[in-house]
């Protein structure tokens, strides 16, 4: 190790703020570049599974013999 103490690592002879700012920004951007598409994929699966379930529920309303999970249909309110 080149430095002798944590304080020296932090200050780096006056260049610390520059070096650490550059490295933290890099870490942030690299993490975002991976997390954003993963999040997008997760949302895609969640949306598709939801719409699949809704479709199954509708099918069950039309044909009650189909073996789909029971879901309550929205009630129609007549004023």
């Amino acid at each position, binding site marked *: 190790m*080149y430095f002798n103490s944590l304080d020296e690592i932090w200050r780096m002879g006056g*260049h610390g703020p520059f*070096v650490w700012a550059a490295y933290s*920004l890099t870490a942030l*951007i690299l993490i975002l570049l991976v997390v954003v598409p993963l999040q997008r*994929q997760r949302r895609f699966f969640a949306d598709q*599974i939801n719409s699949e379930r809704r479709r199954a529920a509708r099918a069950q309303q039309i044909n009650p013999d189909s073996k789909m999970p029971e879901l309550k249909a929205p009630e129609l309110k007549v004023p």
Partner: protein
Amino acid sequence: MWSFLQSLWHKLGSPRWFYQISGKLLPWLAILTPVLLIVGAAWGLLFVPPDFRQGNSFRIIYIHVPASMLAMAGYALMAIAGAISLIWKMKVAEIAMKCAAPIGAALTFLALVTGSIWGKPTWGTWWVWDARITSVLVLFFLYMGVIALNEAFENRQAAAKACAVLSLVGVVNIPIIYWSVEWWFSLHQPATLKIIGKSTMAPEMLHPLLVMILGFYCFYALALLIHMRAEILFRERTTQWVRELITQRGAVR
């Protein structure tokens, strides 16, 4: 050999095949990338002695140089993918071109900002309008142009065509960036690493840089694959194989 290459070429055209193969590659990249980046960064930040002229600020080289290299290599990849999608109408190439743009833009932004942060203690200024820095700024605008153009079209095929043409025209900028420090007088220091000839860097400083460059290449591959897989799922959402993936996921829940 030829028939193998031919069958590989045809398989590459299939988003489904690409999704499956990339899924096998992904765990390895997901392990290798953080290991290389953390080892390289710790080595460069803590163990290498400071530069005798620039002091500790030179440690920014370990992110600035790899980010700049990938910003340029990523552009070449985007342009090649664009050319393939123009000529052969290959779906996977079109997706690769679209996904390379935001990653490249982010890396170019990183190269510009880390360079600027490095410039302040070294040159005494955050920014100069010299050939190297200006041509990298043009690279950033080219990436943003491809992103904007892709969003501007309602029709996906028209968007892909326009993006491919723009990225191919922009390739002119790559050799300009590369040789700008030699063609024009510049504040920017000349290349530290050279493909031909000896590098102008002490080996103890060079080795962590090589680790970081390898780490950034792995990161690029990882980020591109993840982006492409999300895009493939979305575009192929009505196909049999994606429906099956969705029901599998739904059953697990």
